[in-house]
């Protein structure tokens, strides 16, 4: 994803795993990111998959996720791919 930039990532849904002691994923829209990699995510859904039958979830609104609490950040593969294709397409046209 070398050809992409932060501007392409911002505004998309991220799936963030943080340093909690259980398997929790925070899903939300990336509104802002700073140079330290601190995230500001909106419409956050906190989802726990501990209980596979009835996954627990709740809404948290706007959440700051400091870089040092982040284990991993994931993005939807399809969305990412489309971004890349668009970018490549654009680049090829320019060239």
């Amino acid at each position, binding site marked *: 994803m070398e050809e992409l930039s932060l501007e392409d990532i911002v505004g998309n849904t991220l799936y963030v795993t943080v340093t909690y002691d259980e398997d929790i994923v925070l899903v939300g829209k990336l509104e*802002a990111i*700073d140079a*330290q990699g*601190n995230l*500001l995510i909106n419409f956050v859904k906190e989802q726990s998959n501990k209980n596979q039958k009835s996954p627990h979830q709740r809404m948290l609104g706007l959440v*700051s996720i*400091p870089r040092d609490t982040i284990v991993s950040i994931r993005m939807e593969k399809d969305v990412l791919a489309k971004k890349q294709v668009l970018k490549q397409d654009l680049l090829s046209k320019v060239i």
Partner: protein
Amino acid sequence: MSIIYKPLDINNLSHFNKIKELIDIDLSEPYSIWVYRYFLNQWPELVFLAFDSDNTSTDLPIGCIIAKSESHRGARLRGYIGMLAVDSSYRKRGIAKRLVEIAIEKMVEDGCDEIMLETEVENKIALRLYEGMGFLRVKRMYRYYLNEGDAFKLILPLTKRACIRSTFLVNEQGVNDSNIVI
């Protein structure tokens, strides 16, 4: 002891973290990183730090003031003092006062028409500091803080525009930001 005052170097992350620490200790309101990012990254020139130049073991600030300035209803340029903190071992030496003065001087220079801030009714020290500099209590706000106290909104007028209702300023000027379609 000599205290020196410097504008913020936004590139210095250890200063950023120390500012956060100075303020978090002092305030009852919980602040996230993005409170600091909001002020510091957008108005770095309105952040001033105090350093103890005699203390050579560290280059970290012992006090700070955080401010911003924006158009208020398209009528006047309003400065705003967001946060002010001084390390507890450095209090009662006029450091806070000097920080406020430096910030006000900068906002005057930038052409602000007024400077606004809010403070708890019970915070007599802050009231004395700001009122000594010409800030006026313009209104009381009911249960403004999370800790449930009332607050005063204080304004320091810098130009005549501070003394005219914004509705009338806008008409006078014929320009209203809200009418400008971006």
